[in-house]
């Protein structure tokens, strides 16, 4: 009797594990399949979401990938997402690309590693995703093969990422109360597009973001230096200071942006003043 109970529990456990780790593709009805996105609008989404900073190693339009991301779990290499049919994503449908960006699921149904910030892009408005995809299709193709990630056991079992997603992925906003349109826009730019928290928020042992310490600074995964807190008590910058920094790269004391943040400022500088003010409003509203 006791033995059967154990077997029963084991079967249930395996079923739960199997279910939890399964991929959950993007619900097709979330996308207006068939609508053609606007590449012009998509260029700004591309800048706001910072796609080129990771997928282009030399700052060109060809998104050939190759940039290395060192972490506690191994080294990830940004893949080729140019329009090359063999080595990029030129053969993918709009749904395939949206499913990758917003659900972290590949066309053949595998989980992506969350070095790709799909947990952020999951909150993207589907029309923006379609515009972004339309823009990606205008970029040059490149036949450089993607480099395999250098990830050891057990993180090399992609199935286990289903458990990670179950624990850490979701579409809930971290900042729940946004009482002005500006703050709402800022939240969208920070939490759904800019993926600022991916670096500026500390992670737990499993690599999930500690939302209780949202934007309060973190160790640099590369092991060098620290990524600063953006909390207003720590940063001490005015909204104007933040917006000017994101526009020109100058800090309030006229030092300049450095490191990976240079790329971020180049991207955000392409948005309009209202968007930079919105990001500043969001950061000043952090608690």
């Amino acid at each position, binding site marked *: 009797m006791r033995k059967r109970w154990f077997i029963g529990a084991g079967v249930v456990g395996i079923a739960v594990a199997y279910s939890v780790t399964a991929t959950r593709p993007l619900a097709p009805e979330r996308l207006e399949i068939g609508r053609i996105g606007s590449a012009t609008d998509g260029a700004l989404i591309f800048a706001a979401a910072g796609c080129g900073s990771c997928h282009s190693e030399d700052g060109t339009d060809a998104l050939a990938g190759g940039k290395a991301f060192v972490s506690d779990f191994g080294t990830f290499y940004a893949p080729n997402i140019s329009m090359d049919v063999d080595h990029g994503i030129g053969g993918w449908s709009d749904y395939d690309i949206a499913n990758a960006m917003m659900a972290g699921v590949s066309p053949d149904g595998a989980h992506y590693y969350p070095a790709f910030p799909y947990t952020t892009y999951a909150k993207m408005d589907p029309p923006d995703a379609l515009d972004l995809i339309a823009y990606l299709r205008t970029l040059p193709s490149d036949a450089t093969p993607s480099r395999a990630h250098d990830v050891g056991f057990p993180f090399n079992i992609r199935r286990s990422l289903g458990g990670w997603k179950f624990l850490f992925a979701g579409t809930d906003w971290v900042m729940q109360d946004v009482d002005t349109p500006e703050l709402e826009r800022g939240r969208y730019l920070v939490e759904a597009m800019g993926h600022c928290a991916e670096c500026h928020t500390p992670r737990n042992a499993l690599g999930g973001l500690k939302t209780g310490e949202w934007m309060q600074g973190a160790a640099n995964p590369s092991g060098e230096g620290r990524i600063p807190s953006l909390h207003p008590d720590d940063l001490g910058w005015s909204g*104007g200071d933040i917006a000017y920094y994101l526009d020109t790269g*100058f800090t309030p004391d*006229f030092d300049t942006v450095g490191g990976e943040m240079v790329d971020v400022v180049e991207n955000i500088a392409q948005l309009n003043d209202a968007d930079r003010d919105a990001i500043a409003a969001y950061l000043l509203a952090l608690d």
Partner: protein
Amino acid sequence: MMKSVTLLAGATVLAFGTMALADGHADVNPAVKARQSHMQLYAHNIAILGGMAQESVEYDAALAQIAADNLVALASINETTYWPEGTGNDMIEGVKALPAIWENMDDFMVKQDGMVTASAAMAEVAGTDLASVQGAIRDLGGACSACHREYRQRDD
């Protein structure tokens, strides 16, 4: 009384001696101090133009020209001797210069030339009007961060 004065004098001498020793112990390579001071001079002059560009300070054509000319002068300084081997952040605590500088010294020097170009462009227009300063300061910032992107430790 006499004894306490002597004691006080002794303590003072000891304190100053210790401070001098501490300063000596810091043992910062003079080249590091030189280049850090150079960066401060850049920031000081850029701040004058930046304050005007941000419109937190009223535009003053003469002052803008002075600051821009200073930047040209600063950028013209040959920095070769600022960067001796062994003065990166892997060797000296508190230094932010990355070892990549010494691995790519040619590129590093090319990026410094970017500052020559950007400050010359600023000096050409700084005395004209505010809009020109607001335009030229972007490339100036770009020239600074071109180096800071690759060669300065990122931290807070």
